């Protein structure tokens, strides 16, 4: 994957300003509605705060995570929307043996269910733990946020971004990065000075601004290097290794069999037998 020169500034990107999130979970509901996802049977307090459902799953592509913290002796909530990061160079797309994932030019990373063989390598690869599996089915497929690709194609915004009253802004990655930097610069007391998603996994199409330090909120520390490059540095050597081992062993065999070959030829030369010949004048065979 040599797309280090690829330009993602025009990729459609989410800017999620968690300092503005009210925890209304309109995004969760809109996503369920748009994707026609089942509701899950849960308990009310199944995580921190009012966090529900407890986990992302085959039926839940996004959820708001709650974080309780203390500020000036007061109990406070922080919220952030967990979702597929729609990475610039997605790990899922690089490991899928049948190429079922694709980073579209518009921005979302989309999944072609018709190709999927259900091997679950994408689930191992994704550093954010996004793809989920249809464990309830006899012939399961992978499920994840679609980036509302069909809506994007029609000029709409994703369902969650449309529903969100405060926190989500949606636009080109270049614009969203500029906006994020602007907010960080203008109100440094409001924001933790970092944009999660700017460099994580080589850069994603979901950018977060937070008030608390990232690990306190629960953001996973993820490598800044695009994940496909870890694999490619080994896989790119495959043709070379094949040729080297093949030709090396061929050469070795040629040498080690040489003695035997020479001995056989000597024996044949020294044997009393003459090869059959045809006398060209009489056309007679002689031994």
């Amino acid at each position: 994957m040599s797309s280090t020169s690829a330009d993602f500034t025009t990729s459609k990107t989410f800017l999620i300003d968690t300092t503005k999130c009210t925890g209304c979970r309109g995004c969760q509901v809109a996503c369920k509605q748009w994707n026609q996802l089942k509701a899950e049977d849960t308990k009310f307090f199944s995580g921190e705060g009012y966090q529900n459902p407890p986990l992302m799953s085959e039926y839940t592509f996004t959820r708001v995570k709650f974080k309780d913290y203390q500020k000036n002796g007061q109990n406070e909530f922080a919220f952030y929307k967990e979702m597929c990061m729609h990475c610039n160079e997605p790990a899922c797309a690089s490991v899928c043996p049948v190429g079922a994932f694709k980073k579209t030019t518009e921005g979302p990373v989309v999944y072609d269910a018709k190709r999927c063989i259900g091997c679950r390598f994408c689930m191992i690869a994704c550093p954010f733990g996004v793809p989920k599996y249809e464990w309830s089915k006899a012939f399961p497929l992978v499920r994840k946020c679609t980036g509302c690709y069909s809506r994007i194609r029609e000029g709409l915004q994703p369902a969650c971004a449309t529903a969100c009253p405060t926190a989500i802004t949606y636009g080109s990655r270049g614009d969203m990065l500029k906006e994020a930097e602007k907010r960080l610069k203008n109100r440094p007391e409001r924001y933790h000075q970092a944009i999660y998603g700017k460099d994580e996994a080589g850069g994603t199409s979901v950018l977060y601004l937070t008030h608390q330090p990232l690990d306190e909120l629960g953001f996973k520390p993820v490598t800044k290097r695009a994940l496909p490059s870890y694999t490619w540095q080994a896989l790119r050597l495959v043709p070379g290794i094949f040729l080297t081992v093949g030709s090396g062993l061929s050469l070795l065999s040629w040498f080690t069999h040489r003695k035997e070959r020479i001995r056989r030829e000597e024996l044949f030369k020294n044997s009393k037998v003459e090869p059959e010949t045809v006398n060209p004048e009489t056309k007679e065979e002689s031994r």
Partner: protein
Amino acid sequence: MTAATRIIINEIRGYHRFLKFMIALVGLGALASLVRFIFGLGATTNLNDVYPWGLWISFDVVTAVPLAAGAFTLGAIVHCFHIKKLEPLVRPAIVTGFLGYSLVSVGLLLDLGQPQRAWHTMVYWNVHSPMFEVSMCIMAYTTVLFLEFLSPVCEKFGYHLPLRVLRWLEMPLVIGAASISTLHQSSLGTFFLIAVDKLHALWYNPLLPLLFWLSAIFTGISIIILEATMVHRFMGQPDESELLEVLTKILPWVLGVYLAVKLAATTLLSHGPLFDRPSLLALFVAEIVIGVVIPMVMFMKRAYREDQRMQLRGASQVIFGLVLNRFNVSMFGMEQADQAIYYPSVIESLVTIGIIAAHVLFFVLLAKYFPIFEHHPETVDYSIPDHAHSTAADHGHSPATGSGAVH
């Protein structure tokens, strides 16, 4: 009941108790597979979104592939390095390899969510995916093994023409086998390079593919030692410990290179704390000490190399170390500190046990009904019977080559 069925059933009735036990285990495994397909992966396995890969990937794919590595290793040693002495060990190694790789495919088909779409890898290509590479290589290599396995089959039924073709193909097949195997043995390690923030630093480093390839080589050699010793003990085959000594001489070198690369990679190339999880550290130490250091030191002494019991013990330790290493990389090292531990369900275990039993069962049966252990000097003349002319004297075969067909 036809005559054929009656013959087969009588034959099975005469089998040793051990074989009947294997048949029972295979039957249980088949039943468990049926249950898996009826109720689905979610209901029958302990896999979940945090641990999408479990026993079937860890053992039936990531471990079983290097366990079947004896075929290409021995093929290269005998035919490329031309250590002809070890020839009698080649054929059983090929059978082990063929069975092993075929059973890997069985395990894989059970683990896939859409096994009926397994052919998709042949049509939809993603050259950036190590799984694509492994699946292509394994398909190619199983074909090679099948062709190599055809030799004893053709010998049994007296098909001389295929035998001549196969003999002509022998060197290309051996070299092809070693090249293809190098690719997929190492690519199984490449699988885990993407799990950069998930696999613990004790095992994660960029040289994983090299380590997987080296360990496949010394494991293949050890499986040959184990198998030759077992067939001597239980199947009335001659004592090959003299031949095995050649292999035990090679082992310390491969183990030594592996140890050096592993220690260098772990100390110099890994990112992240090495000593933060005591249970993982214990597994790492066990894998290295039991599986690499002790056998390596053992086989540096000639007395241990020549002694049949020590050969078996050392080889068994290496194999144990390999199994532990593959589980460490694909399962234990992937356990996240803050999540519940994965352990296989009953169905998962029954299937894996059934697959192992199938390997043992079919190896014994193939050895029973096909010329696996008969030495087959390569100078045997598989002449095609010439029905058109009566053949008079020998057509100038030099005395160095033998003659006479084998049946």
